[in-house]
């Protein structure tokens, strides 16, 4: 695998994420978020979990980002104002990052190479999904439905009045 591509993807992803977290304008941040998600999807591809990457693309880039943009548009009056930035968060975030980094580096057991495995097919995922994970699947389905209804109710509520 090419390290260069890996590096590029990593940089793009992190930069996108950083931009999404720090850009003052919401709409810009939302666009940068898409960039970060695309980068993440690339990582999934890179790791051999193509299906997950695809799902990531569809769900996040296709659905979530669009939703966010819609929301931004719907709450435009407020969105226009530049957001204040709380610097205290940075300290905490950096500290947490430091802590995590220290933990990762200190842990010896993760220093193993990846095993060779047959590619993870969609069919296999489907099999596993409908055998081992059928209950979680059902729950997620329920959850999604509930979320859908909940979202609808939340948004509709005002209109009823």
């Amino acid at each position: 695998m090419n390290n260069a591509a890996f590096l590029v993807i990593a940089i793009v992803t992190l930069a996108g994420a950083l931009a999404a977290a720090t850009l003052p304008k919401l709409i810009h941040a939302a666009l940068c978020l898409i960039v970060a998600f695309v980068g993440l999807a690339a990582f999934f591809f890179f790791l051999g979990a193509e299906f997950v990457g695809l799902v990531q693309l569809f769900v996040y880039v296709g659905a979530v980002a669009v939703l966010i943009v819609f929301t931004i548009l719907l709450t435009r009056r407020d969105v226009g104002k530049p957001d204040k930035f709380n610097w205290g968060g940075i300290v905490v975030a950096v500290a947490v990052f430091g802590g995590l980094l220290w933990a990762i580096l200190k842990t010896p057991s993760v220093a193993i190479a990846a095993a060779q495995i047959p590619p993870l097919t969609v069919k296999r995922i489907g099999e596993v999904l409908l055998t081992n994970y059928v209950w979680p699947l059902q729950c997620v389905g329920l959850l999604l439905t509930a979320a859908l209804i909940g979202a609808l109710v939340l948004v509709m509520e005002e209109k009823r009045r």
Partner: protein
Amino acid sequence: MNHWIVANLWLIPAIPLAAALSILCLNSSRGKGAAALAVLGQIVALVMAVIAFVPTLQAPGWRAFHNFTWFTFGEQALRIGWVLDPLAAAMLVMITLVGLCIFVFSVGYMADDKNFTRFFAYLSFFSAAMLGVVIANSLLLLFVCWELVGLASYLLIGFWIDKPSAAAAAKKAFITTRIGDIGFFLGILWLYSGSGTLLFYDNGHGCLENAGLLLLGASATFVALLIFCGAVGKSGQFPLHVWLPDAMEGPTPVSALIHAATMVAAGVFLVARVYPLFSAGAIDGVTPSLTVVVSIGVITAVMAALIALAQFDIKRILAYSTVSQLGLMMVSLGVGGVAAGIMHLIAHGFFKALLFLGAGSVIHGCDHEQDIRKMGGLRWLMPVTFLTYAIGMMNLSGVPFFFSGGWTKEEILQATTHWHVSHLPHYLMLVGVVLTALYMTRQMIYVFFGNKRAASTHAHESPRVMTMPLMMLAGCSIVLSIALTPAWPWLHSYLNGEPAHFHIARLIQPMLFVSLALVAAGIGLGWLIYRNVAETDPVEQAQPALFHFLESKMWLDELYDWTVIGLSKMAARLSDWMDRNVWDGLVRAFAGLGQFFGIFSADFDERGINAGVDEATGGTRGLGRLMSALHSGQIQTYLRAAAVSVLALLILYAWLT
């Protein structure tokens, strides 16, 4: 016959009482009916009295009584009863007779009073009570009637209710006599606890009979003195006489009946009735209690006669004369002349009633003017009144032979000579005789002689209904003298329970001349001094200070006002003040103590106990507030906290491993 009257003696007072009650029920417009009822009642009573008189004549010292149980308390029966003896019988006749005359007189005198019926009700009531006093065979019953007599007197003195002075006089009379009655009451109690009975005569067990007197022993003196207190009050004796002149505020017939003839004499009657008590343990007829009676009587007689000299109110003069005469009677009783005293009492009843009614007639004729200085020359204008009044005056002055008063006074003077203790009473009595003649002459001259003055210009003779009783009474007082002559001392013997014998020799005694001289001196002196009286009194001109002293009744009223009454009023006010401030103050202080305890505890609760707890509570609350502040409600804060906690856990983990 006699048994019947003894058992039914109660009817004599009961009939006037019934008359009184039925009059009370009458409408006030039925004046004539009321008068008729009252007079009728009195006539019946008179008849009954005469009937009762009859059996007492059958033997000297005859006595009958009828006792019965009033009520029983516990195992003890309280018995009362009535007695018929010469004393009672004579009094009964006198009272009913005088009463009848006065009733008749009142019909005329009170004719235009708007409370005519009430007046007769009161009069009848009085008559009943007085008769009750006379017939009582129990000290308790006597006291009961005695008080009722006082009540009647109170009602009648205050009869003219719209006159404040009348009300004041009534009150004064009631209270003053009540002071005496308190002593009387204590005497009754003492007697009762000493002898165990209150009956006078009870077949040898009565308190006046030997057995009872023995039980009493030495305390009889005190009992007698206490009872005498009652007599002092009722009969207007020296310290308590002040009410009697004031009582003249009542209508004149009242003064005549109650405050001259009957009620005031009740005191004398009382002493006579319980005389065995007074004379118990007597040595030569002298006991301490009798000595007291004599002293009081003497003081009263002389003092009242002196005061009478300086009065201008026609009725007041008579009132003081009454006081004086009552003193005389007391002296008589005290020195042992019981019969003489009672005789004088009866005679006095007639002639004093006569005098008062005459005064009433005069007042009636002079448009209710009572000041003798404003009268004068009435002898031609009111001849009947004048004549009868003169008879009364003769009686009172003690002119002997034809006037009963003369004889009885004579008897008393005789009795005083026999007193072993001192002859002072005798001489003072002689002075009294002179004074009596003097002030009566003064009054006569003022009223009937001389020139007409302000009030007498339109004077007129009173109607027959008023003059008739005058004549009747005048007649009586003259007729009575027959029964009183020393030659045939019938009444004396009758009262003393001895047979009477006729001795013409006794008619003429040395004493008679002395008194005759004194009376003549009195009248002559009076004529000399007063023959040319004008508006001012000759004595006043000569001795203004002395006259004023006498005119103001020796300032006794003022003295009482300042001392006894003032002190009592102060005591009353003090009691009230103590009640409001001291006793109630103590209670308030206790309450305050409780309140203080409350304040103290509340404070302790607030500052002591609560403070500690509040510290703890406050600390907890402070902690809570701190926590609450941390929970700002902002998700980010929570997130931050979570992050920091994760970090902290991490570090902890690192530190542990």
